[in-house]
């Protein structure tokens, strides 16, 4: 009887799964039990109460109001925002550099293609952490002191404390103009979409599209600025004591991480772009050329749209890698989520499990959200076969 059940593959599958579940449960229970005993023995408290306790340590860069008396919950938000900041900066610049290098690798100019190839092969084969260290310790920390800053037109400054840029300061009228610009941008996007639909339906574009767009984007803010009697002045950084005051300050930690992430990820993006462009069959280019399109238009209207279908999925993967790699910030002390929360906060509270679980949950949420969007996009652009 038992032997017959054993020989029935359906029963065997059930048995195997029951076994697996019980094994996992047993193992999980064993871990939980050990952890609870260990925590008790070491006198570490559990739960998320620590999030409302006062943190008591400073953070060198924060996008929101933060001081030492605020809670560990605030350190979590500050760290998360810093992670998002460096990721966003990295993604934008890595995309630009990566696309440039990817196209350059396929250039008809031999020298340009070789330079791009050397760039890709050098930077993607060196560990990112090493590149971060190189920028931080070998490049940015040998810059001159604030008093001997390198400066451009006396408004941009570069020294060992980082980069200092002038910051635009608007009054109330100026803010209205900024909002007018946002409105104009939204309207322009709407116009472009409308144009696309019109072209699809009738084959004719909207008249004066470029002129209307430019007029909206430049005219509307300028007119509102003038009407609202706004004013704008630049807060230029200036030497005060041993450092600079005013303006936008980019810390060397941020710069090093940003450069390294950009250069490293761009090398991978270049490869993604190159293989995407190469995946478009030669016949497409030849057909477009035979129809009389110029090389630039062949690229923009025929090759790139088809290549994007191949490029976007691995490109999103690179973006996710960049976000995850930004956690290397902790090695040079840039206050990102891992450094501030899984580092300092963990050391102060000792609540390893809660802190690491929260940190992992953040990255996991980002990853899963992006891959969900990716799947939606893939369904959207998938070739509809008749």
């Amino acid at each position, binding site marked *: 009887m038992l032997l017959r059940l054993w020989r029935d593959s359906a029963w065997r*599958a059930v048995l*195997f*799964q029951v076994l*697996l*579940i019980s094994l*996992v449960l047993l193992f999980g229970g064993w*871990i939980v039990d*050990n*952890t609870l*005993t*260990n*925590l008790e*023995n070491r006198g570490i408290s559990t739960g998320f109460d620590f999030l409302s306790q006062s943190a008591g340590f400073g953070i060198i860069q924060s996008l929101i109001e933060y001081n030492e008396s605020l809670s560990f919950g605030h350190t979590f938000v500050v760290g998360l925002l810093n992670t998002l900041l460096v990721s966003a900066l990295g993604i934008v610049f890595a995309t630009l550099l990566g696309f440039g290098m990817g196209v350059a690798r396929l*250039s*008809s*100019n*031999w*020298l*340009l293609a070789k*330079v791009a190839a050397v760039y890709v*092969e*050098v930077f993607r*084969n*060196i*560990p*990112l*952490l*090493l*590149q971060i*260290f*190189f920028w931080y*310790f*070998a490049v940015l920390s040998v810059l001159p002191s604030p008093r001997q800053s390198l400066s451009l037109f006396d408004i941009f400054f570069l020294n060992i404390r980082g980069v200092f840029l002038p910051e635009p300061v608007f009054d109330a009228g100026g803010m209205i103009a900024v909002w007018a610009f946002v409105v104009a941008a939204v309207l322009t996007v709407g116009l472009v979409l409308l144009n696309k639909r019109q072209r699809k339906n009738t084959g004719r574009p909207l008249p004066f599209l470029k002129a209307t767009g430019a007029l909206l984007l430049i005219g509307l803010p300028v007119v509102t600025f003038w009407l609202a009697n706004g004013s704008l002045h630049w807060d230029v950084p200036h030497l005060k004591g041993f450092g600079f005051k005013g303006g936008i300050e980019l810390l060397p930690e941020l710069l090093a991480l940003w450069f390294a992430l950009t250069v490293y990820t761009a090398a991978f993006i270049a490869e993604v772009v190159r293989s995407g462009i190469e995946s478009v069959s030669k016949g497409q280019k030849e057909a477009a050329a035979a129809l009389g399109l110029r090389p630039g238009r062949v690229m923009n209207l025929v090759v790139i749209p088809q290549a994007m279908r191949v490029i976007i999925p691995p490109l999103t993967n690179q973006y996710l890698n960049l976000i*995850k*790699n930004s*956690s*290397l910030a*902790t*090695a040079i002390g840039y206050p990102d989520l*891992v450094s501030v929360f*899984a580092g300092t906060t*963990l050391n102060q509270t000792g609540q*390893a*499990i809660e802190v*690491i679980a929260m*940190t*992992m949950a953040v*990255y*996991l949420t*980002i*990853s*899963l959200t992006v891959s969900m969007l990716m799947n939606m996009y893939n369904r959207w652009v998938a070739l509809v076969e008749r």
Partner: protein
Amino acid sequence: MQKEMIEARTPPIMTVGALAWIKGNLFNTATNCLVTLVIAYGLFALIPPLIQWAFIEAVWTGESSADCTADGACWAFVNARLDQFIYGFYPPEHTWRVDIFFVQLAVVLAWLMIPAIPGKKYGLVYGLVAMPITSWIVLSGGMLGLTPVDTHDWGGLMVTLVLAMYGMLASLPIGVLLALGRRSEMPVVRTFCTVYIELWRGVPLITVLFMASVMLPLFVPEEIVFDKLIRAMIGMVMFQSAYMAEVVRGGLQAIPKGQQEACDSLGMGYWKSMLLVVLPQAVRMVIPGIVNTFIALFKDTSLVLIIGLFDLLSIVQAGLNDPVWLGTSTEGYIFAALVFWIFCFGMSRYSQSLENKRQEH
């Protein structure tokens, strides 16, 4: 309508030769002329001073950074510390044991990678089973009359290679199992494997290493103490096996269904059909992907610096803090980068050549 005969065009002046090549590839359009000139100027401004710094003015031997000049590279630092960069704090009188490990690694790689060497099957068994065991015994000692060497004293290139090799050896079989599990028809197994894979692929390696170094000791009874190197290895294997699983799954998906059906009709069980028919084809198909995962693993070993292990990068980093060798950070990083680069570039070339060979068939 054209009435007159059009004059025959004169033949192009140059179609072959060096000049024609230069004209066709560097100066074929106005933009390309400009680009070529700009790049040529950039290279001209960059490369001679670099060679001057790195070779001509460089100082190769010395006792401290005082022996070096400002105009040239201070390779004396790398030279003086080379043993430490390779062996870490391994007792100098025992470094021959590390050399045995290096030689074994080189033999296995050559055996498996060079097509002309026969007996790949034995090479595989040696590389996957015999070599790891003998290497571990020789490195850690305590057996066969070898003095035990604590993993605290391990460091440098040796730790990088140990982490990469054992990480690879463990993550490959686990990855294969996970890939099979994710394609299994049993819902519990499938869910379990999918969750495991997506969980580790969704988080940065650093958090996994933090977890392995901070949380792992909490998970086991206090009597069991893992040393740091083992903990880092566990973290890396958990992480890398998830990536490996996805690579192998790609191969499994590419195998036509007919193969599995043929096995079924021959009456082969699940494991028999997988091990003898499906997996050999699938794994062979994704060897380039496996090599790429391995390159990522190799670069990622440098992250163990953050949990306080001394791999190649962190031992160079530690050396830079020595007051005797102040101001040599560029040289140190270039050396470490060169070592990592040689390994990674070699592997990526190998993976590309495999891919090309496959496409030729």
